[in-house]
């Protein structure tokens, strides 16, 4: 358990313990502000000593995150946050390592590190800010921009198919995937707490609005008038119900997931899919991660939290074993091992 390798704080910390003295330079109205507030709220709840939190980021608007939270922090280079965080965590399992990254940072230039950190199940927490645009370079399409999206670098619309973050995470054998909206800070905190508890790589996709270069990108799911019908909040052990009248649900049909109405065509609440984020088989998790309007609501909350050995734990085990059984205890032993002779 990761909780066991990280020393906890003796006193109850508050959000002030994590408030930075730096001026937050995100645009007014940027979704990142709510995410920052959520982190300041959840870190005291997680309960580690404040010196044991470590943020690592790449490049992009979201990657300025480490400057705005008072922890150890490393703002690195484009795409490499996951590789750097890997080194931090492998070297010191006493640290709670958090990566702030974006859709360009982790899915384009850093795509390779992203899939491999997940595949290895290194115990870090990845906050993936997905605004479907390059914000810091002022508005070019990203690997998550929808097909046909008109941006500065795609004046006639993009001609490439976007990644679905959850699909990529599960394809890389991810053990934890969650999705949140930047509009609900309290919910973000709840999900981040789950991410922190998870042993292994956790990826939380944060659907975040770039008010300047991609305003309203997520509006089709966040708009007040229809959000009850476009958002499904997943709760462990509970049937998947959504809709303004709380009568719509997700059922596992013959050909995959289906949206059904409770009370119609003989459908009862007991026919609905019950969420099991701990299920090891990722099949249903993948279907849930891929759901989106207009045919489905988007799944929010923890979609998957499976238990699998972490790379850092396995590495520590190998070192323990080698130290317990190995004959070479110091470099003098090493230098004198094998064939040596006096001259």
């Amino acid at each position, binding site marked *: 358990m990761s909780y066991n390798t990280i020393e906890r704080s003796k006193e109850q910390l508050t959000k002030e313990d994590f408030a930075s003295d730096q001026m937050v330079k995100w645009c007014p109205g940027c979704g990142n502000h709510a995410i920052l507030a959520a982190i300041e709220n959840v870190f005291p709840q997680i309960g580690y000593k404040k010196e044991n939190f470590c943020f690592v980021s790449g490049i992009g608007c979201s990657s300025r995150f480490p400057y705005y939270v008072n922890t150890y*922090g490393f703002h690195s280079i484009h795409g*490499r946050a996951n*590789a750097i965080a890997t080194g*931090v965590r492998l070297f010191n399992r006493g640290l709670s390592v958090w990566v702030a990254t974006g859709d360009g940072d982790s899915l384009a230039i850093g795509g390779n590190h992203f899939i491999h950190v997940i595949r290895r199940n290194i115990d870090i927490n990845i906050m993936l800010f997905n605004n479907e645009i390059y914000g810091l370079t002022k508005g070019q399409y990203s690997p998550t921009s929808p097909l046909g999206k008109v941006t500065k670098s795609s004046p006639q619309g993009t001609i490439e198919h976007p990644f679905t973050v959850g699909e990529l995470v599960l394809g890389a054998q991810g053990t934890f995937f969650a999705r949140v909206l930047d509009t609900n800070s309290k919910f973000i905190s709840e999900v981040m707490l789950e991410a922190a508890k998870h042993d292994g790589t956790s990826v939380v996709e944060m659907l975040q609005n770039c008010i300047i270069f991609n305003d309203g990108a997520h509006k089709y799911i966040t708009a007040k008038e229809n959000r009850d019908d476009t958002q499904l909040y997943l709760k462990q052990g509970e049937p998947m119900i959504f809709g303004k009248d709380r009568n719509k649900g997700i059922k596992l049909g013959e050909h995959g997931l289906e949206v059904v109405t409770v009370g119609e065509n003989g459908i009862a609440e007991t026919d609905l899919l019950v969420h099991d984020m701990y299920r090891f088989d990722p099949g249903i998790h993948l279907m849930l991660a891929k759901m989106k309007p207009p045919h489905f609501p988007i799944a929010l909350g923890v979609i998957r939290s499976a238990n699998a050995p972490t790379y850092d734990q396995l590495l520590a085990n190998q070192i323990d074993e080698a130290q317990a059984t190995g004959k070479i205890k110091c470099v003098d032993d090493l*230098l004198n091992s094998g064939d040596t002779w006096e001259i």
Partner: protein
Amino acid sequence: MAQNKQIHEKDSVVVKFVGDSGDGMQLLGTLFSDTAALMGNDIATFPDYPAEIRAPHNSIAGVSGFQVHIGKETRIIGDSCDVLVAMNPASLKANLKWVRKGGVILTDIDAYNAGALEKAGYSSNPLEDSTLSSYMVVSPAITTMAKETAMALGMDVKDAARTKNMFCLGMIYYIFNFDLDIPFKLLDKRFAKKPGVSDVNKKVMEKGFNFAETLEVFASTCHIAKVNLPKGRYRNITGNTATAWGLLAAAERSGHKLFLGSYPITPATDILIELAKHKSLGAKVFQAEDEIAGICSAIGASFAGALACTSTSGPGLSLKTEALGLAVMAELPLVVVDVQRGGPSTGLPTKTEQADLGMALFGRNGEAQCIVVAAASPGDCFYQAFNAAKLAMENMTPVILLTDGYIGQGSELFRIPKIADMPTITPPVAKANDPDYTPYRRDAETLVRQWAIPGTEGLRHRIGGLEKTDIYGAVSTDPQNHALMVQNRKDKVMRLASRIPKQEVMGEPEGDLLLVSWGSTKGQIQTAIKEVQGTGKKIGHAHFTNIMPLPANTADIFKRFKNILVCELNGGQFAGYLRMTHPQYQYQQCNKIQGLPFTVEELVNVIKNQIK
């Protein structure tokens, strides 16, 4: 049985084993050199293998070799060989040019069938025409005899045929009057889990030994002079192993555990493999998804308090350059080992070159000084890896250690040091709850910032690739601050010039000609200088270990010589660097870019030309 056996004394001898890759030439060479070392000879070895793992059987492309120089003093692997052991026509063809006229060629007549000759490009059998008339050729039916012996002991045909290399080795041991007890023990060790295999190999080797004794041509054998080295405990070591061990030694000495982030690349992979074996020393070794993740994971580990390293070769260093700039900017300790190979691009992966110097010195965006050091021999890799780690940690900056394929894969005798005798390493670790700690406060003398390790109470801070304010470390684009920080980072490296050891001059301290070199060429140049002694000219040799910064007394040395000749295995990168840093002197150049080390003969000719 040969009568009146005579034994000649020889100072040294070069033996090269060549055959198909997969014929076990590396094993043969290693067994031979280990035996020689245990017999009391100095040794130097170098493997020569193709980039392909198993190129077509009997083809020139598939020839693999291992050269061994044994004797009283063998600081190089030798220009040409005295004995060539060639397992097939292709290996003979590919290596004949390296055999000294009059040298011995031991080859297996069983391998000279029409197909093999054709594949090697021989239109007639070289054992029958005049191709080998200048050499002493011994070509018994090696496979036949080896097979007979091995099959008599119950080995199947295929495995039995493979013991032909042991038969050859037995013959070679006879020629040099070696005791078979030593290779027998080595074989027992190597095949500890398969004693049957060991027994067969021993029998075949003995058979080869006894067979050689019956040959008239070996009526006179030789005895190789014992090594003349300072007293002590020795071992054979390759440069890559020495590099790995030097890093482990620095980790132990500094109290900061080793983290290696690396990606397999020829000829540097052995460092990764070697360190992966030593988890009992607490080393954490991470095989990354690519070169970039290799260095980035190391940078992360460095931030977290590790002695962090990444090992690579030229193409990998190209990929790492952006991250290297981050380590310069963040001022984190990091050792980058570049085992250079022939370039550019994929180039000559298994061959040696010194052509990454320019990249090590200048290959980053912005003003981004790194410390650059170079190792001179396989054993020196241990000390330079240790030194690189010490410089990185004590100066909070990346250090590039340049070795190359020649010394990385080559081996030599190495006097085993005691770790307690190695220099101390004291990185500037910030103390918990130090109220004065700020990320970019510097030591007034050295300009080194402190290492505040995550997890330490009271030192939370942020660093990164964006320019930071002096002392406090907030993000800043202030012009004056940027100028100051650039200067600080540069001066931190340049001020080291007076703290690193003074540059030494071997040979004459002043005079007619100063040979200047760096890296793996030291042995050849030293040997060449010895050969031109007695010409009445005063020749000195300055071999540089510290390249960035150069030692403070460099100009003092240069001014005492009439001519300066810079010898390096590239187009003149060090010479160009010296013209930039010490423009007041004239530099002649001696360059070679063939993927091969200098030969002593080449250097002797160049030196003679210079002093004529």
